[in-house]
């Protein structure tokens, strides 16, 4: 196939990285160089997925083929303010690379181990090898990876302080107007371990392609609470992928708040591999201008006695788009499965658009599965009721819109996480409503 702007610059980039790997005396780096080249060939062969691919029907990425692949170089020290992030241990990654100087890991509790970059990438080698021959995004990540974070929690360890992993898109270095980064995170919880982790994505105004890959492996009885706060820059295309593997009686709890970015897609795949596993997935997307949000969920019940719940919402203003695809796959042997799914969208303008695609593939007969989807607007009767009590129109709209989002934020545990999520969501919704007000 003909090589467009993107692949030309991608090849240069990967060749450069591979050469650096080969220059190192470590044998695993040489292997990584070879893996990069293989992944590059795979990505180039596949090309960007477009609307002909069912999974990308409403989020075609082919136009990204004409955008150069940016570098993840950065200049100097990044002094970004992180004061709003909760206290406690922090890992800070810039352009996907861990910055040890900005980390707060001194008071890390016993039983939790965090590895960064070279060590982490070596640990991820097998996974990268699988990605290198998988689909486009997997191959792209394997080809361009620059750093990684691996978090391990030992068996029977309950980590009571939440860990924060901040992925920051680098500020553009001189002369560069395109950025890219391949954030990578692996979380492994051993038997009966528990952890809470905030994954925060922050961007700059530069054009940026961010394609994080998050893997979660939960051993029997493990419990993981995972808050994702996506606040990418206004010119960022964020193509994220979360893969979760659950063993017996493990519990996965996700809040995926996709608040900012020109395009953001969250591909969430959870596999319940052993009986008694349970996952609860909450998502909230907000879009303004011509922003695009895609929440693409697959919950795979492979064994009996699994429980899953999905609650995904979006608030869409102006010409914003919100796509939800929620697939529940129940294998023939997965009897006594309980699966719920709900998707609700609130449109703040005439031109906003929501697409909802529930996909239930149920091959067992003794299961409880339900799904529901609604697309609506702010209710006039509720608005009038609030105004008739003296509450101004703007505040009344904000109250109702925040109330719509509250189903997701209120399910967060009380404390810093909920406060953070509520204030970020509220601020974002206020902006959306203000812009609608100005446009009208």
């Amino acid at each position, binding site marked *: 196939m003909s090589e467009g702007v993107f692949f030309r610059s991608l090849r240069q980039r990967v060749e450069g990285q591979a050469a650096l790997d080969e220059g190192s005396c470590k044998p695993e780096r040489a292997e990584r160089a070879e893996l990069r080249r293989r992944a590059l060939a795979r990505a180039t062969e596949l090309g960007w997925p477009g609307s002909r691919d069912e999974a990308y029907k409403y989020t075609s990425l082919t136009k990204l083929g004409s955008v150069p692949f940016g570098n993840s170089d950065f200049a100097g020290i990044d002094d970004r303010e992180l004061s709003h992030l909760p206290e406690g241990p922090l890992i800070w990654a810039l352009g996907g690379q861990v910055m040890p100087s900005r980390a707060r890991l001194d008071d890390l509790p016993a039983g939790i181990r965090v590895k960064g970059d070279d060590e982490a990438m070596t640990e991820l080698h097998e996974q990268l090898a699988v990605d290198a021959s998988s689909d486009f995004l997997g191959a792209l990540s394997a080809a361009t990876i620059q750093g990684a974070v691996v978090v391990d929690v030992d068996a029977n360890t309950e980590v009571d302080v939440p860990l924060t992993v901040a992925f920051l898109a680098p500020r553009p270095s001189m002369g560069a107007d395109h950025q890219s980064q391949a954030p990578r995170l692996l979380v492994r919880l051993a038997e009966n371990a528990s952890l809470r982790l905030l994954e925060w994505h922050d961007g700059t105004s530069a054009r940026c392609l961010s394609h994080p890959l998050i893997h979660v492996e939960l051993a029997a009885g493990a419990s993981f609470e995972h808050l994702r706060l996506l606040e990418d820059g206004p010119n960022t295309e964020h193509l994220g992928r979360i893969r979760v593997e659950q063993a017996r009686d493990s519990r996965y709890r996700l809040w995926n708040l996709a608040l900012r970015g020109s395009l953001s897609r969250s591909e969430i795949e959870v596999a319940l591999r052993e009986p008694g596993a349970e996952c609860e997935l909450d998502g909230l997307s907000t879009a303004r201008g011509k922003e695009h949000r895609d929440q693409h969920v697959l919950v795979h019940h492979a064994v009996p006695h699994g429980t899953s719940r999905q609650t995904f919402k979006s608030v869409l203003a102006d010409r914003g788009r919100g796509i939800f695809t929620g697939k529940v796959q129940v294998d023939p042997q997965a009897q006594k499965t309980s699966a719920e799914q709900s998707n609700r969208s609130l449109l703040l303008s005439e031109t906003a658009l929501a697409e909802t695609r529930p996909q239930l593939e149920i091959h067992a007969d003794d299961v409880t599965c339900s799904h529901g989807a609604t697309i609506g607007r702010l209710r*006039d009767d*509720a608005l*009038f*009721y609030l105004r*008739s009590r*003296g509450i101004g*129109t703007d505040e009344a709209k904000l109250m109702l819109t925040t109330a719509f989002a509250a189903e997701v934020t209120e399910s967060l545990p009380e404390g810093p996480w909920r406060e953070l999520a509520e204030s970020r969501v509220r601020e974002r919704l206020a902006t959306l409503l203000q812009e609608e007000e100005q446009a009208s």
Partner: protein
Amino acid sequence: MLEIRNLHVDVDGTEILHGLDLTVKTGEVHAIMGPNGSGKSTLAHVVSGRDGYEVSQGEVLLEGENVLEMEPEERACAGLFLGFQYPVEIPGVANSYFLKAALNAQRKARGQDELDALDFLKLVREKAALVQLDKELLERPVNSGFSGGEKKRNEILQMAVLEPKMAVLDETDSGLDIDALRVVAQGVNDLRGPERSILVITHYQRLLDHVVPDRVHVLMNGRIVRSGDKELAKELEEKGYGWLESEAVA
């Protein structure tokens, strides 16, 4: 307090009110009675500023100010309160949060200090006890899952907290059993005072046994066809509205 002059109102191109005149003096309680479809709710909605009503003629003055030129929230801040016939359920907004936002919006508009959380809590608990509303309902979403009686008591609670100058109660008695009716009536009576006027819109006379009005008006076919004292309500209860039909068309 409230003066309605020659009010003509259209809904979807059909005139519902045909020149309604009504004056409620400060400190008085008036009742408007009338059969279904006479325009009672239209009157309540127009006064409070709901969309979908076209005023073709006339004016509505609250202490001399034309409220028809005000937004609904401005009317509320000017001291007008509408008790809804069908209170609206608002999932996701806690009742007490809503009430605090409303009270403070009104206080702010009047140049008063906003109440802090503690003072507000004290006030709202005291008023909730007055209308016998379970404290638990203060933390529940506004009217969500409330019984019919709870919804109406919640309206009276809002009135008690907001202390309007002019309250219009649109069929607040409908759908209430006798105990709930007494509680609602008690709530209304507690608010009676020399500074406050109340307009009770009702289909039945029974509420007026508990809230004794200074004046009773009969609304038929979009006009006030007769006014009198509380005895008029009793007469209506006995005779129905039929005997006034001739006056309504005249």
